[in-house]
């Protein structure tokens, strides 16, 4: 290619635009989410907890896996609890949302303990509790404006 200065300058500009888009793209990965989305994710964790309890109860999934999964889930739930923007929620859900998230965190810890103890009865109860909590979270999400 010819090496005229104009061409080089144009190439430089091209590179800068390109870098800009890559940065935007990378930054987008850490973009913020809306409260209904966050509640949906919490709801999915409640459902996962329920499923893990049921499957662990009959020995379908490994113990280490179940514990790891619950641990990872708790981390996600706590992250949601700190990141959620309460001011974007309707007034009657503002108190209920942090409470439900805290209960989910506790339930997941409890389930992990049941797994560690190998307590089949407790796991059944945990599954039922997770089911109920999932319903609560769904109701809250509807209130917050999710479909």
């Amino acid at each position, binding site marked *: *290619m*010819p*090496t*005229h200065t104009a061409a080089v300058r144009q190439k430089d500009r091209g590179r800068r635009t390109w870098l800009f888009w890559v940065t935007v793209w990378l930054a987008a990965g850490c973009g913020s989410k809306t409260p209904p989305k966050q509640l949906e994710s919490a709801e999915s964790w409640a459902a996962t907890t329920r499923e893990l309890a049921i499957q662990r109860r009959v020995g379908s999934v490994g113990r280490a896996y179940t514990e790891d999964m619950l641990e990872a889930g708790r981390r996600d739930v706590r992250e949601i609890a700190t990141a959620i923007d309460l001011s974007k929620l309707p007034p009657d859900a503002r108190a209920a949302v942090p409470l439900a998230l805290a209960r989910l965190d506790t339930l997941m810890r409890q389930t992990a303990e049941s797994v560690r103890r190998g307590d089949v009865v407790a796991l059944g109860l945990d599954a039922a509790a997770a089911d109920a909590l999932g319903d609560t979270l769904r109701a809250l999400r509807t209130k917050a404006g999710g479909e």
Partner: protein
Amino acid sequence: MASVRECRVELLLGCRVVDVDGVVVGRLEEIVAELDDDEYVVREFHVGVFAAFERLGGGMLGRGLLRLVGGKRLYTGYVVPWKVMDLSDPERPRVTVPKRELRELGETQRSAGTMPRGQPSLRAAGGHRQSANENTVS
């Protein structure tokens, strides 16, 4: 042969070629040589978008598309005989005659020769493209 100077094809490629009046002819895309007495001697230079397409072996489809998209403007290429190509400044190749005196590269000549199509095994044939009848001054 008083002086011998070198010029690099890969850097020449894609350079804008102007004619004697400074009118842009196009970008340099291909150099045609001929084996003459054990030496590869340059005969002509092909300039312009069409020449680029020819180099890429664009085929019927490419030629059709090019005509469709760019019309006459894109569908041009010029043959510059070595005698009128001035490469004294390799970054700014110059043609020593006006653009209108250059022969156009294109379909008219293409159809003049019949092209052997589709050799059964190109690998066996050594793969040399048999296109000697395309746009050549022989």
